[in-house]
C-alpha cells in the first residue's frame, strides 16, 4: 500500500526533526551553563583593561578597553585598590601564594607517603592506634579549630612566618588514606623479590614504591596545590606583615567594604592574576585533576 510507505517516511522525518531539536536544546543548555560560569570572568577581564574612572562612574564596559598594559604593570609592580590601604604589589602576593601552595602540596605528599609506607609494609606495636590518630583528623577541618590552633601558633612563636602559614595545614588524612589504599594493591611478590635480592625497606621505597606512585602523586599534587592556593581564613589570621600577604586575602583587603571610590580596575587586574595559576593547573592537568578528585573523595 502506498500510504504505508509515505507514513514510514513521514515518521522517519519527524523522528529526525525531533532528534535535531533535542540536539539543539542540549547544545543550548550547555552553552548557557558555560555562559553563566564565564560571565563574571569576562566582566573581570574586561574591567581590568579600562581606567579607574570608567568603572567608578558605573559605565560597566562589555568590551575590552585600552588600559590593559598600564593596569597590569601597575598591579604587578605597585599594587593598589582601596584608598586607605597600604598597597602590596601583585608580584609579591602571587609569589607568597605560590610558595605556600607548593609547600603545602609537597609537604602533605611527603609525610603521607612515609606514614602510609610505615602502616602498610611494617608490623609494629600500636600500628592501628597511630593509623586511627591520623584518620580521625580527616574530620577536623582547620576552620573548626581555628582559634585554639592560632593560640598554639602564638605559643610556638610562628605568627607571621611562612612556617606558621604552611605547617599546620600539612597534616593530611586524605593523602595518607589514598596512598595506603594504593600501597595495599602492590603485589606481595614485589616485596618478596626485594627481600630475596637483599634490598632493605628504604631501597624498596625508593626503587619500587615511588616509581609506581607517580600518577597518584601527580593527581594529588593538582588537588593539593589548589587547596593551598585557595586558603583564606588561616592566612587571614596568621599574617599581619603584609610582605607575607597571599593573593586571595590581599585581594579582599583591596576591596575593603566595597567602596565605590576603589581603584576597581586594579582590583580586577589582581583578581585575574589570582585566578590564572589554579585555573591553568586544572585545565592543563585535567586528566590528573579528575583522577585526583574522584579518588581522594572515596
Amino acid at each position: 500500500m502506498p500510504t504505508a510507505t509515505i507514513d514510514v517516511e513521514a515518521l522517519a522525518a519527524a523522528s529526525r526533526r525531533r532528534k535535531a531539536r533535542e540536539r539543539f536544546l542540549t547544545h543550548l543548555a550547555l552553552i548557557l551553563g558555560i555562559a553563566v560560569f564565564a560571565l563574571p570572568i569576562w566582566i573581570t577581564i574586561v574591567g581590568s583593561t579600562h581606567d579607574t574612572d570608567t568603572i567608578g562612574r558605573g559605565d560597566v564596559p562589555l568590551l575590552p578597553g585600552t588600559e590593559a598594559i598600564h593596569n597590569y604593570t601597575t598591579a604587578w609592580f605597585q599594587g593598589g585598590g582601596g584608598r586607605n590601604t597600604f598597597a602590596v604589589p601583585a608580584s609579591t602576593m602571587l609569589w607568597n601564594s605560590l610558595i605556600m601552595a607548593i609547600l603545602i602540596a609537597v609537604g602533605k605528599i611527603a609525610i603521607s607517603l612515609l606514614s602510609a609506607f610505615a602502616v602498610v609494609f611494617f608490623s609494629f606495636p600500636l600500628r592501628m592506634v597511630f593509623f586511627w590518630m591520623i584518620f580521625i583528623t580527616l574530620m577536623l577541618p582547620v576552620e573548626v579549630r581555628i582559634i585554639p590552633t592560632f593560640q598554639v601558633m602564638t605559643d610556638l612563636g610562628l605568627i607571621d612566618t611562612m612556617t606558621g602559614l604552611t605547617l599546620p595545614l600539612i597534616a593530611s588524612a586524605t593523602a595518607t588514606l589514598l596512598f595506603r589504599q594504593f600501597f595495599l594493591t602492590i603485589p606481595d611478590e614485589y616485596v618478596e623479590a626485594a627481600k630475596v635480592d637483599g634490598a632493605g625497606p628504604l631501597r624498596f621505597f625508593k626503587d619500587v614504591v615511588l616509581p609506581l606512585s607517580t600518577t597518584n602523586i601527580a593527581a594529588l599534587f593538582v588537588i593539593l596545590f589548589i587547596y593551598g592556593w585557595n586558603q583564606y581564613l588561616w592566612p587571614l589570621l596568621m599574617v599581619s606583615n603584609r610582605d607575607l600577604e597571599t593573593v586571595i586575602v590581599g585581594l579582599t583587603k583591596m576591596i575593603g567594604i566595597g567602596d565605590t571610590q576603589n581603584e576597581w580596575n586594579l582590583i580586577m587586574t589582581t583578581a585575574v592574576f589570582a585566578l590564572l595559576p589554579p585555573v591553568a593547573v586544572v585545565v592543563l592537568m585535567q586528566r590528573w585533576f579528575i583522577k585526583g578528585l574522584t579518588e581522594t573523595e572515596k
Partner: protein
Amino acid sequence: MRKKVIFRGVALPYLLLVPQLAVTIVFFFWPAGMAVWQSTLRQDAFGLRTEFVAFENFLDLFGDALYLNAAWNTVIFSSSVAALALGAALFLAVQADKHIRGAGLYKTLLIWPYAVAPALAAVLWLFIFHPSIGLVGRAFGAIGIDWDYRVNGGQAMTMVVIAAAWKQVSYNFIFFLAGLQSIPTSVLEAAAIDGARPFRRFWTVIFPLLSPTAFFLLVVNLVYAFFDTFGVIHALTRGGPGNATETLIYKVYVDGVQNLNFGSSAAQSVILMVIVIALTAIQFRFIERRVHY
C-alpha cells in the same frame, strides 16, 4: 586489610611516622583538646581571672538569640547552596552525557570554576552585583528595584548563596557525569525498548542509579557550605548587614578574633566539631554499605 609479606624493623616504621604524627599532635590534638578545655572556662572582661564554669558556655549559647540566628542562617544558607549547586550540576551533567559533538570541550569549560577560591568567587560576583559598579546591580537599579546587598539582608543572603553555589557546581558536575557514564547502556536500552520516554526514563531508571552519588554529594556540599564558605561571607558581607549572613563558622571567628570571647568561641568550635564528626560518620557508614552492594 593487611599485607602478608612485610618488612622487619622496629625503629624504622616509627621514624617514618614521626613527621605526620608530630604535625597531627601539635596542630590537631593539642588545639582540639584546648578547645574542649576552654569551652568549660570563662574569663572576666579584663582577662585577669579565669573560672571553671562546666557547661555554662554551651547553655548560654543555646539561649543566645544571636547564636540561634547564626544557626538558622546556616540552615538556610547550606540547604540553598546544596540545592542550587546539586540541581544545576545534575542538569548540566545529563546534557553533557548525551552523545553530541564537542562534549569534551563542554566538559573542560564546565570544570574550571573548581579552581576558583570561594573568596575569589565572591569577588567575581561582587563585580556583577555591586549596586554602583556592577552590571546586574546597576540594571536592577535602572528598572526600579531597590538593590543594595550592603543594606538589605535578604539580598545579601542571595548574593552569598549564588557565589558559594556557583563555585561548587563544577565539583558536583564531575561526580554526576562520572556516575552517569558508569550506568550500563544495556539498562538504558532496555528501558527505551519498553517504550519509556526520556523524561520518565530519567526519573525511574537513571536517577535511582545515581542516588548513591547524589547522597555522597549532598553530604560533601553541606560540609562545604558549613566550613569552606567563610571566605565568601568575609569577602562579600562580613556577616552583615546586621547579622543577616552570619553563619556558625563566621560567628566562631567574630567571637574569637574580634570580641575575644574565648570561652564562647571554644564552645562553638566544639559544637562544630561534633557536627563535622556526625556528618563524616554518616558518610562512612553509607560508603561501607555501598561497598557491600
